[in-house]
């Protein structure tokens, strides 16, 4: 009887080897055709020398080879039972997969924190009087994007050039009111966040948020003639605003933005004489009303309490 079985085994082994080799060639060819799969030369992080950093203008084009760590080697080493010998200074061993972050954590958490924001502001849309304000906000963040809070401001006013020119050139005395104080209950919503690099070196994270609120304020008539006293107005004052916030560290942020305080103000009547609107009450009862948008630019430095926070999820 002829030994058929060994021959069959030899042929089968040859076929398997050939098919395996063929399959390997096919996969390499397919990989070469597919743009999304790149086979790159292995390079450990140690092989990256300091000379391989950015050029003079800090720009490297993507034709250069990307060097990565050896994932298999790192994984095998990390999973082996080799005993660790501790001694000498602690150094960090680069492990390639530790740099893989599926979702980067937010650099700053606001949820259940209180923001105390002292700020200063100035009028943007009044060409007769420029108001400066000093104020503070106290906000509580229900979530990372929603907050409510209160604010208060004190104002001082300064006449601008047209206030004087109108009197001298057009022989008219402007009718204007100045603001004394304001307060509001506000709600904040943070729909935009981002980061930017400064001069290719420093990364700064920031966010933009919108504010809407309702409050009260007091305005005061600046008398055209000191013989006829002015009066004060109590104003119901809704407001809307848009702001940017820059994160400095875990407890400090800088905010700047615009706020539009909307109200109906009462102005001194134009016809005042000893027999007409002579007193403040009479003038106030015959005051001229006008719809006012007081747009202010505000900038402030926030302190957040608690001063730090803990992440509740893995990195």
């Amino acid at each position, binding site marked *: 009887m002829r030994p058929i079985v060994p021959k069959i085994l030899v042929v089968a082994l040859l076929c398997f080897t050939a098919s395996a080799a063929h399959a390997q060639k096919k996969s390499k060819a397919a990989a070469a055709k597919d743009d999304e799969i790149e086979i790159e030369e292995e390079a450990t*992080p140690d092989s990256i020398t300091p000379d391989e*950093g950015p050029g003079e*203008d800090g*720009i*490297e*084009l*993507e034709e250069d080879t*990307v060097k990565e760590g050896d994932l298999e080697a790192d994984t095998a080493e990390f999973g082996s039972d080799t005993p660790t010998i501790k001694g000498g200074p*602690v150094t*960090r061993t680069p492990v390639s997969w530790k*740099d893989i972050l599926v979702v980067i*954590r937010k*650099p*700053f958490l606001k949820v259940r924190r209180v923001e105390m924001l002292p*700020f*200063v*502001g100035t009028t*943007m*849309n*009044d*060409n007769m009087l420029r108001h*400066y*304000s*000093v104020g503070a906000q106290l906000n509580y963040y229900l979530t990372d994007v929603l907050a409510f809070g209160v604010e208060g401001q*004190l104002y*001082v*006013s300064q006449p601008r*050039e*047209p206030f004087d*020119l*109108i009197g*001298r*050139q*057009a*022989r*008219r005395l402007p009718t204007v009111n100045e603001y004394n104080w304001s307060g509001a209950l506000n709600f904040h919503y943070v729909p*935009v*966040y*981002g*980061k*930017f*690099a*400064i*001069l*290719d*070196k*420093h*990364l*700064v*994270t920031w966010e*933009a948020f919108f504010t809407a609120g309702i409050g009260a304020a007091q305005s005061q008539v600046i008398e055209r003639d000191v013989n006829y006293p002015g009066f004060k107005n109590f104003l119901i004052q809704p407001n809307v605003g848009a702001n940017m916030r*820059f*994160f*400095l*560290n875990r407890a400090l942020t*800088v905010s700047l933005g615009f706020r539009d305080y909307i109200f109906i103000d009462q102005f001194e009547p134009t016809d005042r004489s000893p027999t007409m609107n002579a007193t403040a009450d009479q003038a106030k009862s015959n005051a001229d009303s006008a719809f006012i948008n007081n747009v202010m630019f505000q*900038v*402030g*430095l926030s302190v957040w309490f608690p001063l730090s926070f803990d992440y509740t999820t893995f*990195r």
Partner: protein
Amino acid sequence: MRKHLQIVFFLGVASAFFGIAGGSSAWAQSDDTSGPEGGGHQSEQRRRNDLASQPAVRHRILLVANRFEATPLFESTVNADFRHFVGAGLKLEYHLGDKLSFGALGVFSGSIDTGLVDKIVPTLPDAMSQENPLEPTKDQFRSHLNTMPIHGAAYVSLTPWYGKLAAFDAAFVNFDFYFQAGMSYAKLKSSCADSICNDPTPGQSRPDPADPTGEATLPPDFNPNNDAPLNSGNRFGIYLGAGIHVFLNDFLALDLTVRDYAFSDNPSGADYNADRFVSDADSRFLNHLFMGVGLSVMLPMKAKRTR
């Protein structure tokens, strides 16, 4: 009290500005140490990671470097005293690199009276008042105001900040901040009819036309309302600007800018220095603040990307 609050205001602005500058450096250090979560109790050696010496941003699209930018734009004055100028124009800019560029812009504008003018004019008399001759008439007041049909600037621009943002967790866009400085130009125009501006020698005595000998003179009338406004012509000055590109894709960007064209001007065309006649001395160096919005087209349309 007022001065104290003003000092507090300026100190606040200054401290906030330097807070951003100083704080960003501190934050950047934290970035080098795996972000702000890097604890302060760890040693410096343990805190540093492999990314410390790497570029701040990888695979960044070079949205402006070595590209030509053409931007049709709209512009309007902010808080103008007597007339708003609203216009359309074109900005052309070439970006030498990722940060530095140079360019020029020109805007054709129309004018709209401000609310202040709308309030003053109805209260003015139609004809000159004998009781108060220094009170301008409606026509005198309006005809002294100037317009700015053309303005523009040539500038150098610096783009030190770039980044990306997410809006409503849906839109992810790149942006950059830029700052510009250069020379401004404006063509001012005022038209005062001879019947209104009929003082041939403002602030000076003039020969009496009724005197045939020509020796008698008339004293100055010291009424600036009938003097020529002297607020038209070409003006050159300083230009400052700051803005943001919000990139819609690799070659289109929304361009939002605040621009200040500062040059000598007398917008009211009236007596400013209280010498009771209009002269060039009434002009002063004024800031003309504009806000603009445009759509930037970057050429070539394909942008390179960093490693």
